[in-house]
């Protein structure tokens, strides 16, 4: 018996060693210099919502018509818990496509660390093309080594959507609702829950995922601080008086049960369980038929003019991945997909704002025909990104944990929780 087991064990170990030897020596990526000029067929992934699929197919068809030797094939990003998880696995497996038109800026540092992303500065006109198209905001997309590992593509500047029917029912103005200052917002929220027939005034997801602050704390922090990122120059910014004011505002909302600390299953705004939501213009097409909506900038402590309010970008970038052999074609296609004509096509089909320096001037006809998108286009010029720093996801998770325990569940004082989180985050962004 024992000898049989010994034999089986030997066989198993031998097989494992063979497998390990087979997998240890992976193929190496193409050398940067030659690959940057190489041309030929490439593959790309785009997002899986119907509008972006339609856009992707149209752009590929237009390119392929004139580039018989550099054909582009497009596919939807494979399904997974999140696109970032799928892309991360694909980098490790070495089978990423050349371009992914849905790369989240917060994931870029991790993909870069994994050796998965091509610095677009490798191309002679790489940095200049990005800066010419995007303007000053392009700098927010540089990694700490000063390079662009992503091309800023489209933004969904977030604002407060409100349900006009609920506001009317609560006896509140619908044209210029009192939502500018924290005091106004709180008073309005109380009235909405008392008289508007809704369960919540606003219902941001109170769950623990690292990205949730982008739709509660972060837009208000950006607005209150006049456009600061969570971390700037290696220093966390959220322990400032502005950061604490925003946290205290949200704590008042949770304490008064105007924002529930329990997750809603579904879309609380579309289901008319909440009177307001923090969303970008992608939602217009979704809410259009269901809710009679209006939108205003996020509130600030003492109120600001709409033209001065900065907000979170909710941006998606285009990444070029190191498994790409024909990077010359990939770069040319990337520029083609983000030229004025195709950006206009993206705006028309999806309602999302191309990351152009002045989207209103570039597409005047569209905004004339679709005035409801105008204020989002105005806000698009004042968007702020997540900081592109090492350990980005862990930075956000650390912040979310501190925010959950102090603001959402009120277990610890805000200043203590934020200070502890800031100390940890400072170490994380230093790359250690």
């Amino acid at each position: 018996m024992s000898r049989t087991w010994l034999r089986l064990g030997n066989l198993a170990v031998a097989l494992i060693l063979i497998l390990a030897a087979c997998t240890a020596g992976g193929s190496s990526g193409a050398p940067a210099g030659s690959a940057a000029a190489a041309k030929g067929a490439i593959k790309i992934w785009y997002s899986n919502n119907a509008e972006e699929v339609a856009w992707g197919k149209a752009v590929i068809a237009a390119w392929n018509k004139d580039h018989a030797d550099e054909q582009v094939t497009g596919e939807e990003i494979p399904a997974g818990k999140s696109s970032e998880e799928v892309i991360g696995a694909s980098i490790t497996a070495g089978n990423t496509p050349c371009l992914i038109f849905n790369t989240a800026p917060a994931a870029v540092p991790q993909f870069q660390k994994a050796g998965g992303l091509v610095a677009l500065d490798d191309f002679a006109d790489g940095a200049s093309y990005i800066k010419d198209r995007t303007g000053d905001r392009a700098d927010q997309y540089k990694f700490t080594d000063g390079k662009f590992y992503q091309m800023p593509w489209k933004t969904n500047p977030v604002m407060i959507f409100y349900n006009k029917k609920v506001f009317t029912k609560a006896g509140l103005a619908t044209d210029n609702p009192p939502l500018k200052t924290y005091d106004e917002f709180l008073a309005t929220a109380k009235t909405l829950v008392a008289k508007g027939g809704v369960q919540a005034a606003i219902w941001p997801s109170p769950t623990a995922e690292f990205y949730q602050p982008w739709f509660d704390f972060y837009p208000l922090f950006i607005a209150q601080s006049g456009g600061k990122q969570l971390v700037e120059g290696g220093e966390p910014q959220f322990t400032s008086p502005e950061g604490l004011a925003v946290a205290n505002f949200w704590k008042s909302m949770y304490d008064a049960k105007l924002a529930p600390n329990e997750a809603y299953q579904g879309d609380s705004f579309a289901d008319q369980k909440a009177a307001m939501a923090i969303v970008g213009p992608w939602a217009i097409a979704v809410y259009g038929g269901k809710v009679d909506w209006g939108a205003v900038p996020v509130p600030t402590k003492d109120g600001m003019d709409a033209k001065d309010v900065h907000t979170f970008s909710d941006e998606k970038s285009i990444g070029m991945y190191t498994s790409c052999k024909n990077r010359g074609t990939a770069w040319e296609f990337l520029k083609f997909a983000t030229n004025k004509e195709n950006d206009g096509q993206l705006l028309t089909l999806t309602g999302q704002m191309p990351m152009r320096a002045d989207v209103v001037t570039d597409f005047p006809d569209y905004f004339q025909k679709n005035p409801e998108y105008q204020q989002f286009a105005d806000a698009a010029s004042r968007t702020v990104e997540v900081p592109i720093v090492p350990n980005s996801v862990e930075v956000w998770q650390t912040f979310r944990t501190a925010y959950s325990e102090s603001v959402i569940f009120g277990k610890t004082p805000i200043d203590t929780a934020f200070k502890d989180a800031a100390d940890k985050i400072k170490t994380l962004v230093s790359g250690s």
Partner: protein
Amino acid sequence: MAVAAAGRRGRMRRLIGRDPIGYAFIAPYVLFLAGLFGYPLLLALYISFFDYFFAAPGAVVDRPFVGLRNYQQILGDPVFQKALLNVAEFIIINVPLTVVLSLVLASALNAKLPFRTFFRTSYYIPYVTASVAVIGVWLWFFNGSGLLNGVLGPLAPKPAWLVNEFWAMPIIALVVTWKQLGFYVLLYLAALQNIPRELYEAAEVDGAGIVRRFLAITVAEVRPATTLVVILATIVGANLFTEPYLLTGGGGPNGASMSPVLLMYREGIEQGHAGYAAAIGAVLAIGVMAISAVNRFVLERE
């Protein structure tokens, strides 16, 4: 010559066995185990000693050997300690509940009930239904304005069940017990059908009542099945992921339902600390093996 040849044959036989063809029969499964279980297991152990992260093939990255540092860090990490306590709470509730409920239900379903097949199928359905699908139902049941609180009225806990630090883990334990019950009922049903009827008849003649018969015969006779149920339920409990991920929104409220496997996912997949996550996996595997060994020792001793 002949002696030498016989000696060689003897050595060969000792080396490869009397019927080497047997290797060909077991090879597919050994390959399967080695490729999909052995190799990942060894690789996970290996990367737990490095500051490891997943990288593109051929990428030049620095993943230094750190010895036991990952293990030191996780043992001192309050989030991991909390996750271990949470899963211990889960196992303490879930395992005894599973054993008692599945044995009682199996005994009932083993009796000559009307619609017996219907009931047997009904208990099995949750087990074969995807967690993602059934969790939606439980969310509606337990949330603040859900069915349960509607029934309880002023007696409902505040905050509501799933955002209540005291109740979050017991609720998850209940939901998982319900979900897995069908499988364990099936195990017990198989064991029950092996108990000779004569034992019950003899006990009845001796004047044993229904409770006495259940405790003295049923419980005693299904003890090997109980060992299996306890060990499997412990392993399933230690691997808890989907319920805290979906039911309590990522291990909430405030980390009260964080599980070690959810932490592994967060660290290894979301945050790119594969070495750290692998060390959590190794500690968890050792812990589960130790608990299973104790269970087996306690339950199987004569």
